[in-house]
């Protein structure tokens, strides 16, 4: 552990992840506000942020908690929302392979949309796995700490922020910023279009099942579009 750890790269990770906090902090605030609105205690809010550590999963979970959906539906929906981590995990795996298991277990925990995008570049730039790993750890530690603070501040400020500010609109904007780069080719756009049409059409389904059904239909549509294009 000591041999791999590189302090300059750890610090570089923290430094590079500081400007994006401007975007991440409001997202954490909104998660805290949503948790407060769903009736969670401050401790439960921070625990959820610390353990789940995913804005998308937390927002979906708190919305479903507020809608009084059954536990199984909440867990299943959040699991599908988090499936993109499988993809990040697969992309990160070759870079983490030379590392000891302890490093891999810790770094997997701090694997997020933002840390993934930043760290994958650092890993590709150097042959020494300690460089990328320390950098990744730096981005992860900063994001995780900032995430807890922003969630707690959001919880405490929940009643103070005027509704007219429409701060909850930060949530779709955060996802839009991740979504747009994912629309890289035809089949991905078909997947998005199908998911969007399906989620609105199926809105009347109970327990917000429209979310998981719309997402799954979108994935199937993307696969079909890709198969058709290959055959053509």
């Amino acid at each position, binding site marked *: 552990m000591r041999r791999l750890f590189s302090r300059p790269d750890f610090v570089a990770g923290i430094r590079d992840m500081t*400007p994006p906090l*401007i*975007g991440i902090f409001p997202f954490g605030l909104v998660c805290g506000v949503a948790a407060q609105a769903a009736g969670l205690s401050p401790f*439960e809010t921070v*625990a959820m942020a610390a*353990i*789940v*550590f995913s804005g*998308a*999963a937390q*927002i979906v979970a708190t919305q479903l*908690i507020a809608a009084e959906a059954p*536990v199984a539906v909440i*867990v299943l929906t959040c699991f599908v*929302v*988090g*499936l*993109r*981590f499988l*993809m990040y*995990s697969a992309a*990160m*795996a070759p870079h*983490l*392979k030379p590392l000891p*298991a302890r490093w*891999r*277990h810790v*770094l997997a*925990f701090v*694997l997020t949309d933002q840390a993934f995008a930043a760290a994958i570049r650092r890993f590709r730039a150097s042959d020494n796995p300690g460089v990328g790993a320390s950098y990744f750890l730096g981005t992860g530690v900063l994001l995780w700490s900032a995430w807890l603070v922003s969630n707690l501040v959001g919880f405490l400020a929940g009643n103070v922020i005027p509704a007219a500010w*429409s701060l909850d*609109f*930060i949530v*779709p*904007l955060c*996802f*839009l*910023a*991740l*979504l*747009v*780069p*994912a629309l890289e080719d035809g*089949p991905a756009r078909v*997947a*998005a279009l*199908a998911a*969007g049409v399906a*989620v609105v059409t199926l*809105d009347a389904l109970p327990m917000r099942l*429209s*979310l*998981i059904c719309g*997402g*799954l239909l*979108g*994935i199937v549509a*993307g*696969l079909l579009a890709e198969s058709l294009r290959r055959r053509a």
Partner: protein
Amino acid sequence: MSGTVGLWIVVLAVGGLNYLSRLSFIAVFARVDMPPLVSRALRFVPAAMLTAIVVPAVVFVAPGNVGLTPGNPKLIAALAATVVAWRTRSPTATMIAGMAALWLAQWMLRAARG
């Protein structure tokens, strides 16, 4: 969902499953090749799931009521944010543009209604 126990089950189960997803190829399936269909399907998860989260938050002006007109400020703001996201690839710029467009559209709508 009922009570505190249910909440802790949700937190631990969602956190645990999220961690397993993150850990999957890094540790658990490190020596296994992903089945081709699974890797093809996973590629569409961000496009499909993020759209399924974003679209209802933008198009519904009230529960069960879709507003696909310029009278829906969230639609205007989402379009502006999409253009900025496309051009800049910057989450921060996307968020600032989206919120600014939302406030502007809301203000103009109020002004138009007098």
